[in-house]
């Protein structure tokens, strides 16, 4: 039997090649996808998250581990979908129109992926209509805006209005961030949550989903989402 601890180690060390090999071998030997996720992949990413929090890991290590996990998870996703297991949540993220700063946004996207979210990254300079389209197409429950310029921040409000006009406002929680953004500005434009760090963004997103503050349609499948599974795993459901 393949030693699954090697999967955990490969993810923590950002070794995508080994992670994929071990997962392939394990599945071939009949390992249960749910077991791989619950007992190896999620604990590995939690360890990576902790190493990042304690400044043991920098962004490169974090992203390489994320890449390794995604590599292994891609082999499992079709099986999970068959059993109706949903991603922790579906996020659409982008830097608002007129603004090309994307480093902060990319980090938030990476952290959300690490936390088991399905992330649709629209890139930078994203017009309001494109956010609306993606939220509809992906049936997202969280939309995240980033802005770095005082003169593009107002576009966050324009985009929220576009979501309202399209009747999607209640389907999503709106998260905002970027150096010049503040909790006060978040409240002022009627967004739902603000954080000044990428890890903060992931924590809020998880809280939104786990506390079922998200729209009904995910509610009943609570424990079937990755975060739900992870929470069950840790008995903190």
């Amino acid at each position, binding site marked *: 039997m393949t030693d699954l601890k090697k999967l955990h180690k490969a993810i923590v060390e950002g070794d995508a090649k080994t992670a994929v090999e071990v997962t392939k071998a394990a599945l071939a030997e009949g390992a249960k996808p749910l077991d791989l996720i619950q007992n190896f992949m999620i604990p590995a990413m939690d360890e990576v998250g902790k190493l990042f929090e304690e*400044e043991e890991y920098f*962004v490169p290590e974090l992203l390489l581990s994320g*890449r390794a996990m995604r590599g292994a998870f891609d082999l499992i996703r079709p099986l999970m979908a068959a059993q109706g297991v949903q991603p922790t949540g579906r996020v659409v993220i982008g830097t608002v129109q007129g603004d090309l700063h994307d*480093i902060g946004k990319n980090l938030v996207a990476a952290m959300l992926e690490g936390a088991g979210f399905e992330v649709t990254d629209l*890139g930078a*300079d994203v017009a309001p209509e494109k956010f609306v389209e993606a939220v509809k197409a992906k049936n997202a429950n969280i939309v995240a805006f980033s802005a770095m310029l005082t*003169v593009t921040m*107002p576009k966050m409000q324009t985009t929220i209005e576009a979501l309202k006009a399209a009747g999607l406002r209640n389907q999503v929680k709106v998260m905002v961030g970027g150096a010049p953004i503040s909790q006060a500005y978040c409240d002022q434009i009627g967004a739902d949550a603000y954080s000044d760090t990428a890890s903060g963004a992931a924590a809020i997103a998880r809280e939104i989903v786990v506390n079922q503050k998200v729209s009904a349609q995910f509610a009943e499948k609570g424990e079937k989402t990755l975060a739900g599974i992870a929470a069950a795993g840790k008995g903190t459901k």
Partner: protein
Amino acid sequence: MSKEKIFRNLAVSGPQDLIFGFAPKPVKCGFDLTIGAGTVFPEVNFTLPVMDVSTKTWPEVIAHYEEMATNILKRAVAMKVPGIVLEFEQLPQMTETPEWGAEITALLERHLKQNYEKYGLRGAARITPADIRGPAGVKGVKPVMRHGELWEKLNRSFDLCIAAGGDLISIESIGAKEVHDEGLMFGDVRAIVFALGVLACRDMTWLWSQIVDKCEKSGHSVPAGDTACGFANTSMVLAYQKLLPDVVAAVDRAMAGVRTLKAVECGAKGPSKDCGYENPIVKAISGIPISQEGKSATCAHFSHVGNMSSTMCDLWSNESVQNIRLLSGNAPEAYTELLAYDVRLMNIANEKKQGKIFQSWMIESDQNVSAIGTILAPESVYTIAKAIVAEETDYLRTVAAGKAALDIIQKSVDKKNLNLGKKELQWLERLHKEFANLPKDENVLAEEIFGTMGHLFDPECYGLKVAAAAAK
């Protein structure tokens, strides 16, 4: 297209010649302002508060710039500054509609002229169009750099701003950012070196020879210089947030010197732009005056080199602050007085031949706090500059700059001056190896990176022919 002038030796004979206020090749510009001839001037950068920029709000935008120009110059006159540079960093919308950027350029020149004629206030305006080429960061879209609608607008923005009388022309060019960002995110040293040493240098040459050409034809505008803000400020800010290793940001900054120097090789005269913390390297090699920012720019971003950054500045800047109300008045006015007091101390120290004493405190303040501080000390800057001019090609000069920075950091760690954490030391080890393994021939690296990151950039946009490397 002006011919490139490659610097084979340094403009200074040693670190002792690198001091704030003095540059081997002073620059005369604007309204009787000579930068680098023994006096440090404040460079005030001012921007809009939270508001939309559109045809509908344009009158309000103009009202803000009128108010900012009036308040700043009123403060400058009250403070009896020896001279002043106003920096207008165009926001993207103002470059996308070139006429807008030019209208504000003309407005600033009018204010400077009035204050020069009425109070004898020496001054100049630095105009910095936004590098809207690409567009950068749009998913699945390879940035288009040398043609297309966005380049046309940027090109026209230069022409209209020069025609509007812009005294100093600058840009924070972002050629190769798409590869450099990816390199930073994944700690891919080879991608970082390729982006800075090959792609970025090519883009700088292509872009700056055109800017220099336009300025020379205008007979008025001075091609001032660039800044590696999109590269080394990204890594510096990330390092400050502990998201990237400090040693990576320090090596990135040293290498950025080669890329920013290209502007001068193409004919830029300086002052090189404020957020280019690599400018001291450019000054050591080319002798042009430079603008710097540090402790008085915490309104724009934090850094570990708040004092080190003033060691060799010819202009001292606040990077950028919005037109918002503080308890005294508007923020641009408050920062003008702060900068004016900062430069007064530097100028008095120089007048009393004690500039070096002041510099020694600035160095000691930051030298051993971070690796970036260590490599930006005058002595380190001189060592890095020497290593650069000893090489032939942009690529080899970039690698040499990186290696020089690594050696300086290693020596400081060994002497227990700079104490780095366990993680940083591991990365230092790794960087030594990575730089040792870099190929001598840049084409080898080009093919390799095209193989791994070919989906991100278009070699033709950098005039680069890459043999279609077998997909890995």
